[in-house]
Protein backbone atom coordinates (compact mmCIF):
# COMPACT_ATOMS: atom_id res chain seq x y z
CA UNK A 1 0.00 0.00 0.00
CA UNK A 2 1.01 3.59 -0.54
CA UNK A 3 0.84 6.10 2.29
CA UNK A 4 -1.87 7.89 0.29
CA UNK A 5 -3.97 4.67 0.36
CA UNK A 6 -3.49 4.41 4.12
CA UNK A 7 -4.56 8.01 4.58
CA UNK A 8 -7.83 7.24 2.77
CA UNK A 9 -8.48 3.90 4.52
CA UNK A 10 -7.99 5.48 7.95
CA UNK A 11 -9.77 8.77 7.16
CA UNK A 12 -6.57 10.38 8.36
CA UNK A 13 -5.40 13.96 8.40
CA UNK A 14 -1.80 14.62 7.37
CA UNK A 15 0.07 16.54 10.07
CA UNK A 16 3.35 16.70 8.15
CA UNK A 17 5.11 15.00 5.27
CA UNK A 18 2.54 15.55 2.53
CA UNK A 19 5.36 15.13 -0.02
CA UNK A 20 5.93 11.53 1.06
CA UNK A 21 2.46 10.09 0.40
CA UNK A 22 3.80 8.19 -2.64
CA UNK A 23 5.94 5.95 -0.39
CA UNK A 24 5.25 2.22 -0.12
CA UNK A 25 4.28 0.61 3.17
CA UNK A 26 4.96 -3.12 3.49
CA UNK A 27 3.82 -3.78 7.08
CA UNK A 28 2.18 -2.30 10.13
CA UNK A 29 3.05 -2.29 13.83
CA UNK A 30 0.62 -1.00 16.44
CA UNK A 31 1.42 -0.49 20.12
CA UNK A 32 1.96 2.03 22.91
CA UNK A 33 5.30 0.73 24.19
CA UNK A 34 8.46 2.36 22.88
CA UNK A 35 10.58 -0.65 23.78
CA UNK A 36 8.39 -2.87 21.60
CA UNK A 37 8.57 -0.39 18.74
CA UNK A 38 12.36 -0.40 19.01
CA UNK A 39 12.46 -4.15 18.84
CA UNK A 40 9.83 -4.84 16.21
CA UNK A 41 9.46 -1.85 13.89
CA UNK A 42 11.31 -2.46 10.65
CA UNK A 43 12.03 -0.72 7.39
CA UNK A 44 8.88 0.19 5.41
CA UNK A 45 6.66 -0.24 8.46
CA UNK A 46 3.95 2.17 9.52
CA UNK A 47 3.54 2.71 13.27
CA UNK A 48 0.08 3.10 14.82
CA UNK A 49 0.01 4.45 18.35
CA UNK A 50 -1.78 6.64 20.86
CA UNK A 51 1.54 7.97 22.21
CA UNK A 52 2.26 11.46 20.93
CA UNK A 53 5.60 12.25 22.57
CA UNK A 54 8.96 12.85 20.91
CA UNK A 55 10.08 9.27 21.57
CA UNK A 56 7.67 8.00 18.94
CA UNK A 57 9.35 10.16 16.31
CA UNK A 58 12.86 9.33 17.55
CA UNK A 59 11.99 5.64 17.43
CA UNK A 60 10.54 5.97 13.93
CA UNK A 61 13.77 7.73 12.86
CA UNK A 62 16.03 5.14 14.40
CA UNK A 63 14.06 2.17 13.05
CA UNK A 64 13.43 3.65 9.56
CA UNK A 65 9.65 3.56 9.89
CA UNK A 66 7.76 5.02 6.93
CA UNK A 67 5.25 7.03 8.94
CA UNK A 68 3.36 7.31 12.23
CA UNK A 69 -0.42 7.36 12.72
CA UNK A 70 -1.83 8.80 15.96
CA UNK A 71 -5.19 7.33 16.91
CA UNK A 72 -8.23 8.71 18.71
CA UNK A 73 -7.82 12.13 17.11
CA UNK A 74 -4.63 12.78 19.08
CA UNK A 75 -2.11 15.29 17.82
CA UNK A 76 1.44 15.80 19.08
CA UNK A 77 2.74 19.26 19.92
CA UNK A 78 4.42 21.44 17.33
CA UNK A 79 7.96 20.48 18.42
CA UNK A 80 7.24 16.83 17.68
CA UNK A 81 5.69 17.67 14.31
CA UNK A 82 8.65 19.88 13.32
CA UNK A 83 11.13 17.24 14.41
CA UNK A 84 9.31 14.65 12.34
CA UNK A 85 9.11 16.91 9.32
CA UNK A 86 12.88 17.50 9.48
CA UNK A 87 13.36 13.73 9.61
CA UNK A 88 11.11 13.16 6.61
CA UNK A 89 8.70 11.04 8.62
CA UNK A 90 5.07 11.81 7.76
CA UNK A 91 2.64 12.04 10.67
CA UNK A 92 -1.08 11.33 10.46
CA UNK A 93 -3.92 11.58 12.92
CA UNK A 94 -7.20 9.69 12.72
CA UNK A 95 -10.33 9.67 14.85
CA UNK A 96 -10.33 5.86 14.78
CA UNK A 97 -8.81 3.83 17.63
CA UNK A 98 -6.05 1.23 17.32
CA UNK A 99 -8.28 -1.82 16.78
CA UNK A 100 -10.33 -0.13 14.08
CA UNK A 101 -7.16 1.10 12.31
CA UNK A 102 -5.56 -2.34 12.36
CA UNK A 103 -8.78 -3.98 11.15
CA UNK A 104 -9.17 -1.57 8.26
CA UNK A 105 -5.54 -1.92 7.18
CA UNK A 106 -5.57 -5.72 7.48
CA UNK A 107 -8.79 -5.90 5.46
CA UNK A 108 -6.99 -3.88 2.78
CA UNK A 109 -4.07 -6.30 2.62
CA UNK A 110 -1.55 -4.84 5.06
CA UNK A 111 -0.16 -7.28 7.63
CA UNK A 112 2.43 -7.32 10.38
CA UNK A 113 6.08 -7.79 9.46
CA UNK A 114 6.70 -11.54 9.06
CA UNK A 115 10.00 -11.42 10.91
CA UNK A 116 8.26 -9.66 13.78
CA UNK A 117 5.50 -12.26 13.93
CA UNK A 118 7.95 -15.14 13.75
CA UNK A 119 10.31 -13.78 16.42
CA UNK A 120 7.64 -12.85 18.98
CA UNK A 121 7.85 -15.07 22.04
CA UNK A 122 4.38 -16.43 22.75
CA UNK A 123 5.50 -19.18 25.08
CA UNK A 124 4.41 -17.16 28.12
Amino acid at each position, binding site marked *: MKLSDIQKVLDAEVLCGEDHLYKDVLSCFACD*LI*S*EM*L*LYVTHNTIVITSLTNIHVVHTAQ*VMDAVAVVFVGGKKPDQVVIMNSEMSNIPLFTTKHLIFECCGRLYANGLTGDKKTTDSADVSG
Partner: protein
Amino acid sequence: MSQDNLRFITPHIKLEFKIDEKDFFIAGESASRVKKTLQQVGLPQDIIKKVAIIIYEAAMNVSIHGNHGMLRIYIDPEAILIETEDKGAGIPDIELAMQEGYSTASYEVREMGFGAGMGLPNIKQCSDELHIDSKVDVGTTLLAKVYLNKKHSLGNRG
Protein backbone atom coordinates in the same frame (compact mmCIF):
# COMPACT_ATOMS: atom_id res chain seq x y z
CA MET B 1 32.71 -12.21 29.82
CA SER B 2 34.56 -9.98 32.27
CA GLN B 3 34.41 -6.22 32.30
CA ASP B 4 38.15 -6.05 31.49
CA ASN B 5 37.69 -8.20 28.40
CA LEU B 6 34.85 -5.98 27.24
CA ARG B 7 37.07 -2.90 27.45
CA PHE B 8 39.42 -4.29 24.81
CA ILE B 9 38.69 -1.72 22.19
CA THR B 10 41.19 0.90 21.15
CA PRO B 11 38.64 3.17 19.54
CA HIS B 12 38.98 4.59 16.08
CA ILE B 13 35.90 6.68 16.78
CA LYS B 14 34.62 7.66 20.22
CA LEU B 15 31.30 9.40 20.82
CA GLU B 16 30.29 10.73 24.22
CA PHE B 17 27.01 12.09 25.60
CA LYS B 18 26.28 13.52 29.04
CA ILE B 19 22.98 12.33 30.49
CA ASP B 20 21.25 14.47 33.09
CA GLU B 21 18.61 13.19 35.49
CA LYS B 22 15.20 13.04 33.80
CA ASP B 23 16.68 14.18 30.49
CA PHE B 24 14.33 11.96 28.53
CA PHE B 25 15.30 13.49 25.17
CA ILE B 26 18.98 12.57 25.07
CA ALA B 27 18.31 8.84 24.56
CA GLY B 28 16.54 9.28 21.24
CA GLU B 29 18.83 12.09 20.13
CA SER B 30 22.00 10.14 20.86
CA ALA B 31 20.63 6.97 19.20
CA SER B 32 19.71 9.02 16.14
CA ARG B 33 23.09 10.78 15.98
CA VAL B 34 25.07 7.57 16.40
CA LYS B 35 22.92 5.92 13.73
CA LYS B 36 23.87 8.69 11.28
CA THR B 37 27.56 8.31 12.15
CA LEU B 38 27.43 4.55 11.64
CA GLN B 39 25.64 5.03 8.31
CA GLN B 40 28.42 7.41 7.22
CA VAL B 41 30.99 4.79 8.22
CA GLY B 42 29.09 2.39 5.98
CA LEU B 43 28.10 -0.29 8.48
CA PRO B 44 25.27 -2.76 7.71
CA GLN B 45 21.72 -1.80 8.68
CA ASP B 46 21.24 -4.72 11.07
CA ILE B 47 24.33 -3.74 13.08
CA ILE B 48 23.27 -0.09 13.14
CA LYS B 49 19.80 -0.98 14.43
CA LYS B 50 21.14 -3.23 17.17
CA VAL B 51 23.48 -0.46 18.34
CA ALA B 52 20.73 2.16 18.16
CA ILE B 53 18.37 0.03 20.26
CA ILE B 54 21.04 -0.58 22.88
CA ILE B 55 21.86 3.13 23.05
CA TYR B 56 18.21 4.16 23.28
CA GLU B 57 17.35 1.71 26.06
CA ALA B 58 20.58 2.13 28.02
CA ALA B 59 20.47 5.94 27.91
CA MET B 60 16.80 5.90 28.97
CA ASN B 61 17.74 3.69 31.92
CA VAL B 62 20.34 6.25 33.01
CA SER B 63 17.93 9.19 32.74
CA ILE B 64 15.17 7.24 34.51
CA HIS B 65 17.10 5.47 37.26
CA GLY B 66 20.64 6.75 37.11
CA ASN B 67 20.42 10.25 38.58
CA HIS B 68 22.99 11.36 36.00
CA GLY B 69 25.72 9.74 33.96
CA MET B 70 27.55 9.29 30.69
CA LEU B 71 26.99 7.39 27.47
CA ARG B 72 30.08 6.46 25.47
CA ILE B 73 30.30 4.64 22.16
CA TYR B 74 33.60 3.23 20.92
CA ILE B 75 33.81 2.14 17.29
CA ASP B 76 36.67 0.13 15.83
CA PRO B 77 36.97 -2.27 12.87
CA GLU B 78 36.07 -5.30 15.00
CA ALA B 79 33.17 -4.18 17.17
CA ILE B 80 31.15 -1.39 18.70
CA LEU B 81 31.18 -0.98 22.46
CA ILE B 82 28.39 0.91 24.18
CA GLU B 83 29.05 2.02 27.75
CA THR B 84 26.76 3.78 30.20
CA GLU B 85 27.93 4.86 33.60
CA ASP B 86 25.65 6.43 36.20
CA LYS B 87 25.61 7.55 39.82
CA GLY B 88 22.11 6.35 40.56
CA ALA B 89 20.42 4.03 43.02
CA GLY B 90 22.01 0.91 41.56
CA ILE B 91 20.35 -2.43 40.79
CA PRO B 92 19.90 -4.64 43.88
CA ASP B 93 19.19 -7.81 41.87
CA ILE B 94 20.54 -7.78 38.30
CA GLU B 95 19.07 -11.21 37.48
CA LEU B 96 15.61 -9.97 38.45
CA ALA B 97 16.10 -6.73 36.49
CA MET B 98 16.96 -8.78 33.40
CA GLN B 99 13.57 -10.50 33.50
CA GLU B 100 11.14 -9.24 30.88
CA GLY B 101 8.30 -7.36 32.56
CA TYR B 102 10.12 -6.49 35.78
CA SER B 103 10.14 -2.73 36.29
CA THR B 104 10.54 -0.12 39.01
CA ALA B 105 9.80 2.79 36.69
CA SER B 106 7.51 5.62 37.75
CA TYR B 107 4.06 6.38 36.35
CA GLU B 108 5.57 9.38 34.51
CA VAL B 109 8.01 7.11 32.69
CA ARG B 110 5.34 4.52 31.89
CA GLU B 111 3.13 7.25 30.44
CA MET B 112 5.89 8.00 27.93
CA GLY B 113 5.79 4.40 26.69
CA PHE B 114 8.77 3.11 28.67
CA GLY B 115 9.04 1.29 31.97
CA ALA B 116 7.47 -1.96 30.81
CA GLY B 117 10.45 -3.99 31.97
CA MET B 118 11.81 -4.53 28.47
CA GLY B 119 14.85 -2.25 28.49
CA LEU B 120 17.53 -4.63 29.76
CA PRO B 121 16.06 -7.67 27.94
CA ASN B 122 16.10 -5.65 24.71
CA ILE B 123 19.72 -4.65 25.32
CA LYS B 124 20.63 -8.27 25.96
CA GLN B 125 18.86 -9.41 22.81
CA CYS B 126 20.75 -6.90 20.67
CA SER B 127 24.18 -7.42 22.27
CA ASP B 128 26.76 -10.06 21.45
CA GLU B 129 28.27 -9.55 24.91
CA LEU B 130 26.83 -7.74 27.91
CA HIS B 131 28.24 -6.92 31.32
CA ILE B 132 26.42 -4.99 34.06
CA ASP B 133 28.17 -3.95 37.24
CA SER B 134 26.01 -2.29 39.88
CA LYS B 135 26.25 -1.29 43.53
CA VAL B 136 23.24 -0.07 45.48
CA ASP B 137 23.42 3.69 46.21
CA VAL B 138 26.66 3.94 44.19
CA GLY B 139 25.67 3.43 40.56
CA THR B 140 25.68 1.18 37.55
CA THR B 141 28.01 0.54 34.64
CA LEU B 142 26.71 -1.23 31.55
CA LEU B 143 28.97 -2.48 28.78
CA ALA B 144 27.42 -3.94 25.64
CA LYS B 145 29.38 -5.12 22.64
CA VAL B 146 28.17 -5.68 19.08
CA TYR B 147 30.58 -7.40 16.71
CA LEU B 148 30.85 -6.12 13.16
CA ASN B 149 32.03 -9.48 11.87
CA LYS B 150 29.08 -11.84 11.52
CA LYS B 151 31.08 -14.91 12.55
CA HIS B 152 31.40 -13.43 16.06
CA SER B 153 27.87 -12.10 16.19
CA LEU B 154 25.48 -13.78 18.61
CA GLY B 155 22.79 -11.07 18.87
CA ASN B 156 19.30 -12.31 18.16
CA ARG B 157 18.01 -9.28 16.36
CA GLY B 158 18.68 -8.18 12.84
